[in-house]
């Protein structure tokens, strides 16, 4: 259900509850008012009945004609009052009780009418009159007391109902708000987490089916955005790859044309000067042709190496072990160049998820570059460390060699860029860069001429890639 509808529904329920409680309270108040009016009337009647009984007593004691007239007046007065207030009384106590009250009054009136002021009544009539007067008074007093009691009961009942409804409304409001806010909060937290991870370049989607409300719609939109961003990034990567392909093609043309030109010139000159050449000189020409073809072969090999990256064999590995392994490969070079090595390996490194052969290739390439930059002597520093915040490891290869000039530094990852006079193909760092990028890692470089160069490789931990449990991919 949409949040909008939930809020409408909640408001509707609240309004309904308030209307119900209000109308209930109103009804009770009306009832109380009716009963209250009756008790006021009844108090009046009771007082009149009491006076009637007193007059009746006086009449019997003294045969007072004035007392008899008084009783008759009261009866008439009460009869009129009952008729006038018939509506109010029947509403309060019902028709039956009204009729009974009126019945008693009529009975009393008939008995009083039969009395004669000149002669005292006989004992039978006297008794009957007393009895009827008593009945009238008692009945009237009883229903008055009953109605007062009822008023009390209605007030207590109303108070209880109001109290319960109040708590019901409060609880309903609380639970509904809690559920709604809790759901929204949960969804918002998911969205916050996701956008954080997207901003870090990790275009994952929110798992599970999105809910049917607005939050679900937002999540669907974010999922769509993540997908779209991933697509865009792939397009950008693709176009960068194409741009670097342009650089590559230019480089290839230049790199291939040079040895080709050399071979061509050797052949042309060979034919031209053949007669004047000794046997050794002729062999020398052919050796140079062979060397140039070897150079071509190497360029093509390296190109193919990059253009068609071999299938990755990814597996969990310990970075320090990989470093130790490549050391045995480069030890000979280090010895020849008289280079000391300092290892600063962290012992809290998490495992990484890599193609070990490729990462070895990168490290050997970096170490070889460092050795060549240092020439004879120097110190090579290999450091590994764990970046807990990013859950990545860092491998640092630092030399104290001749350094790289700032204007060259920005080109060192370009294909065919080399600062080495003879020996470089200019593809080593380019290939290394590609490998590390394929591992979702990064390479950065700092250098100062005359001080040395430092390469830093970062690779995500297998935990970050959620691949710690994988063997071969």
């Amino acid at each position, binding site marked *: 259900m949409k949040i909008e509808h939930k809020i409408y529904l909640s408001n509707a329920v609240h309004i309904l509850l308030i209307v119900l409680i209000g109308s209930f309270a109103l009804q009770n108040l009306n009832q109380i008012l009716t009963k209250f009016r009756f008790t006021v009337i009844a108090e009046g009647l009771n007082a009149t009945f009491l006076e009637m009984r007193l007059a009746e007593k006086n009449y019997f004691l003294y045969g007072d004609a004035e007392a008899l007239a008084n009783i008759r007046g009261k009866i008439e007065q009460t009869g009129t009052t009952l008729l006038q207030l018939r509506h109010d009384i029947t509403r309060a106590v019902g028709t039956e009780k009204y009729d009974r009250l009126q019945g008693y009054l009529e009975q009393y009136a008939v008995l009083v009418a039969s009395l004669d002021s000149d002669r005292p009544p006989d004992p039978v009539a006297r008794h009957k009159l007393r009895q009827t007067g008593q009945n009238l008074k008692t009945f009237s007093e009883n229903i008055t007391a009953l109605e007062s009691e009822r008023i009390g009961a209605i007030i207590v009942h109303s108070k209880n109902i109001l109290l319960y409804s109040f708590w019901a409304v409060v609880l309903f409001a609380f639970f509904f708000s809690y559920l709604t806010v809790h759901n929204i909060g949960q969804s918002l937290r998911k969205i916050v987490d996701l956008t954080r991870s997207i901003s870090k370049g990790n275009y994952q989607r929110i798992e599970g089916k999105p809910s049917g409300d607005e939050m679900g719609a937002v999540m669907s939109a974010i999922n769509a955005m993540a997908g779209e961003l991933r697509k865009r990034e792939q397009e950008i990567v693709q176009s960068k790859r194409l741009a670097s392909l342009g650089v590559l093609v230019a480089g290839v043309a230049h790199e291939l044309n040079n040895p080709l030109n050399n071979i061509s010139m050797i052949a*042309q000159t060979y034919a031209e000067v053949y007669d004047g050449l000794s046997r050794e000189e002729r062999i020398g020409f052919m050796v140079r042709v062979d060397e140039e073809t070897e150079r071509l072969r190497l360029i093509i090999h390296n190109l193919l190496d990059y253009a068609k990256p071999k299938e990755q064999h990814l597996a969990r590995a310990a970075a320090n072990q990989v470093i130790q392994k490549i050391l045995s490969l480069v030890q000979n070079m280090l010895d020849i160049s008289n280079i000391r090595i300092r290892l600063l390996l962290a012992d809290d490194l998490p495992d990484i998820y890599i193609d070990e052969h490729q990462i070895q290739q990168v490290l050997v390439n970096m170490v070889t570059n460092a050795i060549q930059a240092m020439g004879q002597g120097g110190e090579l520093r290999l450091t590994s460390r764990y970046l807990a915040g990013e859950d990545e490891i860092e491998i640092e290869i630092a030399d104290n060699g001749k350094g790289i000039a700032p204007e060259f530094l920005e080109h060192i990852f370009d294909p065919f860029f080399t600062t080495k006079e003879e020996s470089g193909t200019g593809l080593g760092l380019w290939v290394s860069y590609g490998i590390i990028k394929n591992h979702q890692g990064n390479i950065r470089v700092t250098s100062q001429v005359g001080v040395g160069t430092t390469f830093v490789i970062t690779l995500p931990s297998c935990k970050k890639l959620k691949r710690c449990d994988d063997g071969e991919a």
Partner: protein
Amino acid sequence: MAKHSIMVIDDEKIVGDMAKLSFEQDGYEVETFLNGETALKRLEERRFDVVVTDLKMKGVDGLEVLRTVKKLYPGVVVIMITAFANLEVAIEALRDDVHDFFPKPVKIKELKASIKRALGEA
């Protein structure tokens, strides 16, 4: 008549070596250089009749050699060879009065014919 002198500059050693062998066969005096810097230094000492230079070299490149030669010896002919060049570079070279422009792989006969024309021998 004294021998004509040719300066050859290319960071590929074979280019210089082969050019020297071939040009000397035709009776030219040849000096070869592996980079622009040493060539420019030599130009301060002496004049050559023809300068054949590679375009793309580390440090001092072919265009800089061309400009220096034209400044020091306005009459000297410069021939450019290159493994890879785009149109912009070729136009720039022409503007600086390059005599000829050869893409690698170079046909030595054509190069020699161009030198001969430059020296007024053809």
